[in-house]
């Protein structure tokens, strides 16, 4: 129901930084479908557990296009859309590594 994960990598800077923790859950999707801007955790066959931001969702096919904030991010531009069934959950709590130092 809830997944606790530690973030690895910098493709979502400055929203999420390496070393931050997040809690992801599918419960929000019971209330409202995934939509652009959501931070989601999902499984990818090659890259394993990933965290990215939703760029767009196509409900007819279940395709979700994800992106990073960094220009070099590995995301749907490289591996195409992901499926709703591969989504671990939406980030519902973000625990920052060092919130005081952030602007």
């Amino acid at each position, binding site marked *: 129901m809830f997944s*606790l994960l530690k973030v690895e*990598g910098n*493709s979502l800077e400055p929203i999420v930084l390496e070393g931050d923790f997040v809690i992801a859950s599918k419960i929000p999707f019971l209330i409202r479908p995934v939509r652009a801007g959501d931070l989601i955790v999902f499984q990818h066959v090659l890259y394993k557990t990933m965290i990215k931001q939703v760029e767009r969702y196509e409900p007819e096919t279940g395709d979700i296009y994800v992106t990073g904030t960094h220009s070099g991010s*590995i995301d749907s531009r490289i591996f195409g859309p992901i499926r709703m069934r591969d989504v671990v959950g939406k980030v519902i709590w973000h625990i920052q590594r060092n919130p005081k130092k952030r602007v």
Partner: protein
Amino acid sequence: MFHELLSKIDQTLGIRHARAHCDIPCGIYDPHQAQVAALTVIRMIDLMNDLSNSQKMETLDYHNSMSRYIAVKEEHAELVKREVRVIFGDYMKKEQVDKYPELPTLVHHILQLGSKCRQTTSRDAALELLGKVNRFAEIFWETKGIPTKKVKAPYKPGEEIVYPLL
């Protein structure tokens, strides 16, 4: 507070990681290729000097050998630049740059010396390039807590090279 608590849990029990990578996360970084490439540049300059002192310039063999030495020198000087750029850009994080404030200038010197070694046949420039790459390697291994030693390469040009004590 929550982060500290979770970090302790992560250290003892291990928390699953979610990847937000910008590149294929292979995590394999080693300055050795850059060091060997810098040695190769010196070796090519030595071979070029030997050749020009030993053979008549108008022979076909001379041009063939000289072209090959130049091509390898070009390739390896560029390889030094590429390897150092990747380690500096992808492996080194802000904390490491803060800890080793010489790093940006050191990398800049390596990039410039790499170009100089392509443009010229200066052995001094090639030696300086190797020296800077060795320093870069020392810092790289220090960031991993791995001590290093300096030894003479057991092959020509027999210059000093930094090795990790694994």
